[in-house]
């Protein structure tokens, strides 16, 4: 039985696991954006925040993912459901690129433009929403793109704690020493990562300021 055949025969399960995978990545990316962009803004505006915020995000990034899942397992509400746990872990990993790029993007806005805006009497909020964020959007988006691509790969490990996703096939294949099963998980995951990379890259180029 070749791989193509296997996927065709089990297309319902492949689809289900792919959707689960997308859900894990999607929700965690959304959370990382909702938390990371404000943190990036805060550290760009108040430099004193920069080191602790980026430092913490950096440290999280160095924790091996399996270990992080293990650490979080005994936490009361979180440990109850594997997908909650996986989403939290993926969110934490996705934070660094989002925070760092938001910071870099805002800091990279032409100082003359910011000074002109300030001198014209824009409030801090108007400056942020009308000038700084629109002009750093493509840089922020490239951070989100990195976060998504990394998450797609990391999410396969979430199957180790029973959170589902395409990792199911991979772990099952490893246990059964079945390469086709491993590939049935790995190839759709790779396709997901590549299409997310391509799609967000396209959007990023569209939004790049002239």
């Amino acid at each position, binding site marked *: 039985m070749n791989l193509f055949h296997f996927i065709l025969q089990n297309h319902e399960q492949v689809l289900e696991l792919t959707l689960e995978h997308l859900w894990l990545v999607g929700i965690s990316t959304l959370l990382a954006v909702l938390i990371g962009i404000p943190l990036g803004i805060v550290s760009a505006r108040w430099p004193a925040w920069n080191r602790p915020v980026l430092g913490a995000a950096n440290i999280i990034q160095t924790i091996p993912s399996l270990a992080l899942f293990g650490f979080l397992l005994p936490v009361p509400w979180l440990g109850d459901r594997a997908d909650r746990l996986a989403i939290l872990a993926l969110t934490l990993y996705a934070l660094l690129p989002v925070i760092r790029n938001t910071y870099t993007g805002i800091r990279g806005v*032409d100082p*003359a*433009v*910011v*000074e*002109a*805006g*300030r*001198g*014209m*009497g*824009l*409030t801090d909020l*108007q400056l942020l929403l*009308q*000038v700084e964020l*629109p*002009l750093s959007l493509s840089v922020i988006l490239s951070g989100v793109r990195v976060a998504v691509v990394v998450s797609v790969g990391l999410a396969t490990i979430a199957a180790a704690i029973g959170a589902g996703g395409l990792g199911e096939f991979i772990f099952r294949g490893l246990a059964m020493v079945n390469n086709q099963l491993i590939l049935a998980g790995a190839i759709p995951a790779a396709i997901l990562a590549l299409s997310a990379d391509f799609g967000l890259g396209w959007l990023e180029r569209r939004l790049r*300021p*002239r």
Partner: protein
Amino acid sequence: MEQRATESTVIEFRDVAYTLPNHQRLLSRLNLQVKRGETLVLLGRSGSGKTTTLKLINRLLIPSAGDVLVNGSSTSKTDVIQLRRSIGYVIQEVGLFPHFTVEKNIGLVPRIEGWPADRIRGRVEELLQMVGLESKLGSRYPHELSGGQRQRVGVARALAADPAILLMDEPFGALDALTRDQLQREFLALQQRLNKTVVFVTHDLREALRLGSRIALMETGRLITVLPPEDFLQSTDPLASAYAQAFAEASVPAANRGTS
């Protein structure tokens, strides 16, 4: 140099000093008045404190000592956003918003001040004409304009909400000589019509002589002297005469210098 503030004083510096957090002093004990409708030129080399002085007026910098008054009230007691919206600000790098069209750039302050859309459109049209730009340029983006056109848009943007005061920080400094000459001429014509109170920063004596009602000469954070342009070249002040001499030498072609 002590002058008494009169009714026509629009901007006043009272014993103003500005010191950086690292204790470097950029400006010491500045006393200066700017009168209604005049163009006061701050002349000096880089590091003389002229841009610092300018930014103290719209409170982009906050004085370390002393007080800056605009229309008789201390800028420390005025709402800083309202203060800045009532003062036009033009800088050398122009600082146009690259993601806005020319129209949106010029109309920004009116827009955040809540003007109705058709009034903004009319005002933008009027301003484009005032600074000598075709109205079809309104839909362009800043990167599609020449340096001179960008600076004209910068001036139009500063004039948008019709401020009584205009701060200009080497606005023509980055332009080629011909464009600069043309913009200076248009500035004079515009100023005759609009009668704004202008504070103009430059390091170029020729520009100062041409545009200024008075020239305030600055050096290492101090105000050296304030003179009308017609007296500047005859001044006995050593720094002023050094400027005058450099100016005179610059106007002699190199080939003639040995014989003079």
